[in-house]
């Protein structure tokens, strides 16, 4: 498993690096429309051909990777922070507060996410740049995606609260911020860390779903979601198999994230 984990980390780093230096690898840019050659097959100028508007697909995959791969972890970080805060407080406080917070969390979990995102997207201001819109989309994902993780963290915090070592710490006179920072948070970190890694692929896939509905990142900025929309039509993909590249990349990256998480959770 260690080899798999190293392989996964290496692949993720390579993909991230390629997306960061996208400007050097694909100088034609993601937005320029080569209108004389729409839907072109791969060539020396366009390694993955062009899309239906004549835009370089390789450039779009790289820039789309940058968007999805950099912003999904940011959203996951926000969601994990909120989950740790809400779940941790509820777990440590226990009693009625825990019941109320967890009831609220359950209510949050029962909300139809996709429709909620569509609604939020609909009331957003219209005149925002594509970059702002993508940041808002992922910020929404992050601020809405904490509930499941909060439940797990709450349960873990509760068991920590009742643990012997915490009883001993309290008996030794440690309390307040010191108790939280020195004893609770370090022991909660593994579960927060796992929740973070699990959230990343979830957010990538959610953005992809929004993209497929045409509600993701604004044109002309690409994301994996918008790139996957090319696969909507059976009629076009059968003759252009290179359109599968964003899908393969998405599968590879999500698998890498899972490999990293699974490997961390396995006992040594």
């Amino acid at each position: 498993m260690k080899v798999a984990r190293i392989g996964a980390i290496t692949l993720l780093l390579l993909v991230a690096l390629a997306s960061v230096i996208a400007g050097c690898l694909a100088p034609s840019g993601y937005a320029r429309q080569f209108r004389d050659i729409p839907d072109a097959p791969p060539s020396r100028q366009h390694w993955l051909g062009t899309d239906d508007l004549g835009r370089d697909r390789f450039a779009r995959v790289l820039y789309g990777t940058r968007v999805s791969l950099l912003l999904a972890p940011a959203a996951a970080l926000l969601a994990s922070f909120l989950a740790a805060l809400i779940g941790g407080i509820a777990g440590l406080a226990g009693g009625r507060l825990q019941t109320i917070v967890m009831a609220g969390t359950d209510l949050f979990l029962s909300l139809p996410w996709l429709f909620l995102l569509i609604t939020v997207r609909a009331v957003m201001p219209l005149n925002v740049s594509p970059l702002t819109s993508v940041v808002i989309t992922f910020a929404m994902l992050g601020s809405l995606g904490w509930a499941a993780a909060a439940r797990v963290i709450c349960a873990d915090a509760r068991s920590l609260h009742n643990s012997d070592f915490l009883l001993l710490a309290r008996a030794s006179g440690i309390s307040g911020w010191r108790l939280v920072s020195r004893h609770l948070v370090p022991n909660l970190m593994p579960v927060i860390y796992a929740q973070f890694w699990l959230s990343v692929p979830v957010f990538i896939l959610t953005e992809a779903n929004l993209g497929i509905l045409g509600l993701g990142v604004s044109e002309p900025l690409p994301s994996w979601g918008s790139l996957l929309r090319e696969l909507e039509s059976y009629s076009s993909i059968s003759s252009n198999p290179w359109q599968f590249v964003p899908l393969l990349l998405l599968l590879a990256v999500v698998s890498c994230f899972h490999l990293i998480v699974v490997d961390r959770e396995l006992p040594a």
Partner: protein
Amino acid sequence: MKRRHFVWLLLVLAALCSAVAQPPTQLRFCLRSEPKTFNPLLVEEDSSDTVRYLTGGVLVRLNRDNQKLEPGLATAWKVSKDGRSITFLLRRGVKFSDGTPFSAEDVAYTVQEMMDPNLHSSVGDTFRSGEGKTETRIVSPTKIAITFPAPVAGLDRLFDQVAIMSSNSPKKEMAVLGPYYVAENKAGSYLMLQRNPNYWKHDASGRPLPFIDSVRLDIQQNRDLELLRLERGEIDLVNSIDAEYYEKLVADKPALAYDAGPSLDSEHMWFNQVPAAPIGDYKKAWFQSTNFRRAVSESINRADLARIVFRGHAQPAVGIVSPANQFWFNSKLQPHPFDQKSALQRLQQGGFRMQDGVLHDGAGHVVEFSIITNAGNKYRERMATMIQQDLAGVGIKVNVVTLDFPSLIERITRTFNYEACLLGLVNTELDPASVMNVWLSSAENHQWNPSEKTPATAWEAEIDHLMRAQASTLDDHKRKQYFDRVQEIAWEQEPFIYLVTKNALSAVSTSVANAHPVVLRPQVFWNIDELKLAPEVADKR
């Protein structure tokens, strides 16, 4: 000799038997959804409209090919000089599918039902031009006069949509006068139409029509599956396909693909000119400027939109009326050219100036606006993205925003919280009367500035005057003069920036004879009476 006679007799009998044993023919195609109603007066969506076309008998029928009216259940008709009344002379000896005889009483019943305000018939709405009661006078069993409270423009043509219902059949709307009747309805799965044995129409040699014995309409939402089924020979036609599927079909089975040329449907964009809209005043000033709208229009490469987005199966749009509308189209008009130099000159005339490749207005505001369109419509999304690049060429920054349809409708009809919108128009009517609800400044669908109390501009006032004039005149040539002028004003002012006119694309199996797809709906089976199926198809089924 006797033996020879016997052999002849045997041969004749064999021939007769083979004729009698010919398997029934069945045409198959798909509906995108289940028909919501079988009541022809309540039809509002495509599937019900298809059933109405195949089963309904009408007094006059618009020939979808030459766009002229032809006799149906009425052998002759006359519109009164004041445009309020129409008199029909009805065909004798016609019966409904259940054997009930047809007479003027049925026409009177249908018209009264249709005009009943409690029924909320959308067909009836097209006849409503004034307050008051519609009167029907049965002169004889084969003659009826119908009088409307106010003149109705294009009155006779409107009867193409009115399927006559029986006034006394126990089967009510299921007793029909069209070529087929609904024999079976398997909800969510298919609809079976059988040949109407009492259909009045015969071919030139006196054979009863239609030729095909039954029509099976499968409910199929997925277009990919529909096309696959056509290619496998499981269905015989696809009435309307989009450019991407058409291209796939051309690559796989070119003999099945038909491009009938420009249809009546167009794609267009417009700027929000509502005075109370919650957008900046300086932006309202841009949008209300003819120079600005014309400059935007000239900066858009319509030929590229047609070639790339619609794979060449669309034409740069001219204006309100598609060239497919043979009579009403103003042939003097041409599509606006793609000319960014001219656009920049217009912008300069309007006080705009270019600074470091970015356009600014007279007050120094950067020219930037958003175009909203409905999410999920990839053709519109692609057009918006191409327009974004085109307008960048004149320094205008465009943000493309895709919204779910209800949110978009909310913005363009209620809150007016948008700047520009890209949508399409699906036209089914040829007569200018059908666009009164768009071009009158007081109309709700006057989308750039709906429901104006008084016309906001002089050119809108002129359009109001011309539209009312054409609606109250019976002479078609005079009406055309008025409507030609409306088209010219709309071309000059561009409240709607027309982008492309889509071609009418369809697919028909080679086993269907006499198929001749046209641009008007229903494109392929408009001549259902005359369609024939190859015998081997009938054998296989």
